[in-house]
């Protein structure tokens, strides 16, 4: 029951307005057929699931219906920020593409 800032609507909104969109920045392999089963399995199933900071996607279901990026601490629900997908990618890369 936290509050998220929607970077598109420009407002903080209650969690009830959003839907969880899973871990962010798991790009779909460009050529799936070139991957062996293990690499494809990693893409399908392996997630970081950290206790601590987590880059994830949320979708503003009742509002703009846009997916966006949130950096959230899974242990405390502290939120470091939220960004559009493109801006979030930059912020994520600026941190070295990890937590």
């Amino acid at each position, binding site marked *: 029951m936290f*509050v998220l800032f929607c970077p598109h609507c420009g407002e903080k909104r*209650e969690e009830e307005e959003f839907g969880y969109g899973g871990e962010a920045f798991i*790009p779909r392999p460009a050529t*799936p057929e070139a*991957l062996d089963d293990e690499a494809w399995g990693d893409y399908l199933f392996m997630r970081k699931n950290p206790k601590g900071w987590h880059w994830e996607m949320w979708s503003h279901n009742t509002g703009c219906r846009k997916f966006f990026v949130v950096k959230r601490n899974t242990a405390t629900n502290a939120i470091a920020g939220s960004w559009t997908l493109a801006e979030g990618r930059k912020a994520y890369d600026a941190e070295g593409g990890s937590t």
Partner: protein
Amino acid sequence: MSSYRVRRPGARVDFDKPLTFSFDGQAYDGFAGDTLASALLANGTRMLARSFKYGRPRGIIGTGPEEPNALMQIETGAHTIPNLKATQVELYDGLVARRTTGWPTLEFDLKSLGGLFSRFMPAGFYYKTFQNQKLWPKFEHIIRQAAGYGSAPSEPDPETYDHSHRHAQVVIVGGGASGLLAALLAGRAGLKVVLLDEQNECGGWLLSSPHSVIGGEQASAWLKSAVGELQSLPNVQVLTRTSAFALHDMNLVLAVEQLQDHLPIADRAAHQPRQRLHRIRAERVVLATGAIERPLVFGNNDVPGIMTASALTTYLNRYGVAVGKRILLQTSNDHVYQGAADLARAGCEVVLADTRTRINPAWEKRVRAAGVDVRTGFGIAYARGRRAVTGAQLVKLDAQRNVVVGSGPSIDCDALGSSGGLSPTVHLYCHDGGRPHWDEERLAFVVPEAGRAKSGIYGVGAVTGEFGLQNALEQTERITRELLSSLGKSAPTSSGNLKTDEPDATPARRIFRVPDGRAEGHGKKAFVDFQNDVSAADIHLAVRENYRSIEHIKRYTALGFGTDQGKLSNVNGFAIAADVLGKSIPEVGTTTYRPAYSPVTFGTLAGAHAGDTFEPRRYSPMQAAHVARGAEFEPVGQWLRPWYFPQTGEDLHAAVRRECLAARRGVGIMDASTLGKIDLRGKDVREFLNRVYANAWTQLAPGKCRYGLMLDENGMVMDDGVTACVADNHFLMTTTTGGAARVMTWLEKWHQTEWPDLDVYMTSVTDHWATAAVVGPKSRQVLAKICSDIDLSPSAFKFMDWREGTVAGVPARVFRISFSGELAFEVNVDANYGHHVWEALMDGGREFDITPYGTETMHVLRAEKGFIIVGQDTDGSMTPLDLDMAWAVGMKKPFSFIGKRSFARSDTAGPNRKQLVGLLTDDPQIVLAEGAQVIERADVTPPAAMLGHVTSSYYSPELGRSIALAVVRDGIARRSEDGHKSGRDLLYAYAGGKAHKVTVVSPVFVDPKGDRQNV
């Protein structure tokens, strides 16, 4: 007026408003302003409960949510509420209360026999005794009778509840002196403030000590002017009878407001909810939740008439009830002294036994002047009395160590109050992950005053360990100023004179368990947790049995469970455990404080999510037409869809038989409006469809439709539906009824996250289009009657075509698609015209005996054709190949569509896949149960190898026999193509204790060549 009543000046009961009420069937009187507890005490009631485990007599101990014993069943019938604390029930005229414990009677409790043998019921009794699971059910019945508390109402709740979502700059929890001052400062600064107090009026402890002095005036006068000013400030809202029971992430305070419970049932306003749940999102939260006095642990400390010392004071000063004539007070600190003086001045004979040898001289002088007999260095070894306290045996304590060094006097009394210090109400602070700090000087777990200021949470007053009134007020002023400046505000320079008349405090003695000179477990039972009958000896035993973590000790002994959640017992329990473990209290720590602070009714949590607003019920635009024709309805996701249309005397089977035959041989009509519909447009729309569907869309021409399978990335079918090409860059997709929202989000996610460059936009038009499916050999004739501008001839309007035209005078899109295998037309119009067009089709079809049908018939018709229902015949583990639908997969598409790569995964590509087949029972009249297990042999002796299960099963009126769809391991290879029974195609379906012989066949039972839909 009973002899326990004292007309105290400043008391908050109205002696001019007498009330009557009943307890356990007997009539009593009280006054407006009483709680049920104060009124019972005024009537001399002592024992009103039996304890949980030992059946020991119990009475009232506290004055509020900390009360462990006085759990009441309030009112009867539909209005009955179990387990309310008598200390929190406001008295009203005619209130009906009953005890909740004592079986078979309060006077004779069966468990008390067990109490005689109580050494056989140690901590962990149930775990140790009922290891034999087979015996447990027999005992459970008896134990529940004996141990149970109140009864849940058996009738529906006649009252309503609602929720209110609020946003405030400052929420202050607790309307005592500190909370009021914080509210005044924040309110004067112009902030949007909400002040919550769980009692019927603000004041907190000031209501129990109205003669204290604040800034030269009596506390009662200060209180009155503070409340008056708050009420005059438009930016401040004061909610009384409102208990903040949870503090969640980002300063979300949940509070329940009691709107009606204090009123006689007949006077309750029908249009007002009984309770309201406030969900308040606050920029800043001020916890001014105060503290609860904890009793000392001594022998027989549970005898009725033994209370916290502060409770005795509160009953006297706030409610005008002197609980006893001869009162013994036992303390380790200064807090009881004012109450001792008040009780003595009210005419009670008061002995004050202080465990300390060095006591506060100023307080000593004041209480002696009031006539209190002060004894220092004494502890209570044990209390006397069984159903009411009659006295106590004192012992001389060592000045430093908590050991007995000599005997003491025996004191007679009819009420006994003890104080082991104050335990701050830290609960809310901890709900959100905060941990209280142990303050060794104040002997309390406290909230740090800056709280978690970074998150906007502050503590003021007793919750921070500032137990003195003046210190608390000065601290509150300082902290509130900090809070205001964090919001860019400042308070006026002075809050006025906050000086009080308290003497400086003298340190309290660090004592929790008063020693009786005997080894723990050998003296009189000394209770730590009253509601769960946890004694000091039980905690010792748990440690002896090697429980080390306080969380484990809690669960083994039941310390701190129950409706009071250990508000009196926890700190004593932690301290005793620490002593036995040889650790410090902070090393032992606390158990976890979780919401709710005090019990909340289910009704309140549900709010308006009840009755016809429990869940969204979605209706098609033709709903009124279905109701008028007497349809029975069934929920499909959130939708309510016609299930079948019974005619007089028909049951489900008769109606479905008639409806099926009409659709197969004449004409039927079904409301398909609930199907999800998504409009897609853009020059890349075909490429987008190629990626999200298994099949290919590059060639589909405008005016044509195609069935599509949508897969997840695992290659499993997640949705299906027909998609139509409207124009070269414009498509209309349909989805399953239940999958519409999921598919829409799915498509948006792929477009937004992976393929934003594709020129395509999608918009849900599910609700825009009303859809009537006209189905059957005569459907063309029906449609022709009300549609003149579409050439309906078979050569001009082919199967899987769609046309734009006018139906019943309304612009329409007509799709020649079929979910039944029959000639069928799906008519789509603006939903505002849905009802009109439905009725026009019914009129046009009258001469053909057009028959409306519901979802049950739809299911039979599609199962006869082997058409799947995603989510019924599939379960997220079925690929198109498992469904024998390779024809719907475009493996040659250049882009690796979603799910394609997974076809090659070893598990997906390997043998032993469960595959969709048809099943025919040997006995054509047996309709298998859906979910029946498919097995190889009739012998079901475990372990029977399970090959799969029946997913759909119906009686087919067209075939005059039963049919079933099933998923079966290697099912496709097992299918008998020509009906001969080779052995491999013979299996058994087991359900309801019987194994039925079945033949594995193709899932297409009717018209296998598909001729009928092409006529």
